[in-house]
């Protein structure tokens, strides 16, 4: 039954996109899971995990330019590539095609806002306890 698997199969640890590469497509995960890594000061920090049915690499379609993060397969992952040309043509003909993408990006912004709020809260607490410590 595996003869019908659409997309491309990546083995565990295989890099699907590299931070800094030119991007002209996005991806939809058909099976498995991938991790999104950002290289900061030579160190790879895991930003997020994405699973079946989720998109990644969509920023390159809208903003152009280079990939802002590296994406790597966690275990075996099957991924379908969406061409920029096909995507933009269809969006032009049928803007509602972007609905799922916008919905998913909206959910990610919500998650990011929550993460930022949590981090700010942690920073506030840290700085308050540092000030309290220095006052003592």
């Amino acid at each position, binding site marked *: 039954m595996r*003869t*019908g698997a659409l*997309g*491309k199969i990546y083995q565990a640890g295989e890099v699907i996109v590299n931070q800094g590469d030119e991007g002209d497509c996005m991806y*939809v995960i058909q099976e498995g899971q991938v991790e999104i890594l950002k290289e900061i000061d030579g160190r790879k920090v895991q930003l997020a995990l994405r699973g079946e049915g989720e998109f990644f690499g969509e920023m390159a379609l809208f903003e152009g330019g280079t990939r802002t993060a590296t994406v790597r397969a966690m275990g075996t992952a099957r991924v379908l590539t969406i061409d920029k040309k*096909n995507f933009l043509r269809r969006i032009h003909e049928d803007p*509602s095609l972007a609905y799922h993408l916008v919905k998913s990006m909206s959910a990610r912004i919500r998650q990011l806002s929550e993460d930022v709020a949590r981090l700010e809260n942690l920073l506030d607490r840290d700085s308050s306890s540092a000030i309290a410590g220095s006052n003592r």
Partner: protein
Amino acid sequence: MRGQSFITSFTNSAFSTGQPACKLENGSPVAVIGGGPSGSFFSYFLLEMAEREGLELKVDIYEPRDFSLPAPQGCNNCAGVISETLVQNLAMEGINLPVAVVQRGIDSYVMHTDVGSLRIDTPSHEKRIGALFRAAGPRGLVNSEWVGFDGHMLSLAQNKGAQVIKARVTDVERVDGRLQVKTRNTPPQIYDLLSVASGVNTSALKLFEDQEFNYQPPKTTRAAIHEYFLGADAIERYLGSSLHVFLLDIPNLMFAMIVPKGDYVTVCLLGADIDEDLVQTFIRSPEVKSCFPPDWRGDQPECQCFPRINVRGAIQPYADRVIFLGDAGVSRLYKDGIGAAYRAAKAAASTAIFEGISAGDFKKHYWPACRVMQIDNQFGRMIFTITHAIQRIRLSRRAVLLMAAREQREDIPPRMSSVLWDTFTGSAPYRDIFLRTLQPAFLCRFAWDLANEISRRET
């Protein structure tokens, strides 16, 4: 435009005509005749868009066939290829085709001519074309592990809230502006909107011959579809994950393709006056024999049919509260019929939810999507005429093969390869393909290869 829209809505309003307003409202009942891809796509997107608008609709799909059965009961007479454009579009819609539905992912095609064969891979080496069966499989199939595409899509529409009524529609009648649908074994039902997605291989379109609509059914021709059992191992060995297309000089044959699936292969022929003799002439050609095991005879397919296909779209495929979709309306010439069904169904659903359901609304918002396909089909006709001419002239067949082979060997832009790929797989609009063949670089290279062939022949 704004004024025109106002006038249309005003004349359609309950106030001006005494008829119910031509808009879907909360609780509006909608009937869909036919549970194939057009009917399922329409129901799916109608319910999805209604949900976004906070609208609750009651959608009934009239489909007498059981797609979990093999042919002939569940069959939808189709080669069963989902183009890479449609695979991508569906993925963007959140519809990912599972491995239980797609029998084989296709990553290349092999072009066969009497002067040689050539394999062309997708640049990304990715399987983005799906070969599948519309129902469970061919006649005589037992214990299939796969699910048919039509059954899968129908279940997605059901998950959105559509109900399937397993009955054949026997009559459609207007009652106070709405549509009454009758079957032999269910009580008559009145609907606010009727979507006709019956295809062209049933008698359903006859129901609309005597109606007051200006609808005229599409013009059709016959294709030949034959299914052969080879077994998964033989398919892997002889055909692999490639579509096999044939440019052979056989009278009346316009296009031929072999599609490898799980345990079966589908042979699909298009042309004028297709009959069993033409199929056998094709099957017996050495180019076809070379794709099969040496002991394969090919004279006894497990399943065969000569279905009608839409080659010229219907005239005025809409009326007040009625919309004709897919093959019953306007489709794509020869290729990517399921992709055309998806585009038309989505345009119809979006019109019904966001604009209205009068003939004026469909004319203004649904018909343009059909017109785009009709205009594109004109380019398609030119492409297939040229392809047919190439098929008949040995020199041009060699030049096409040479040009594509050079592109595969050397690091040069794949001009001919991409034209052939998009023509054979239905992955790009015909207009794009046609315009690419008019580019000076393409024409010069082709003329060069043709001239080389002529001089080689003379020496």
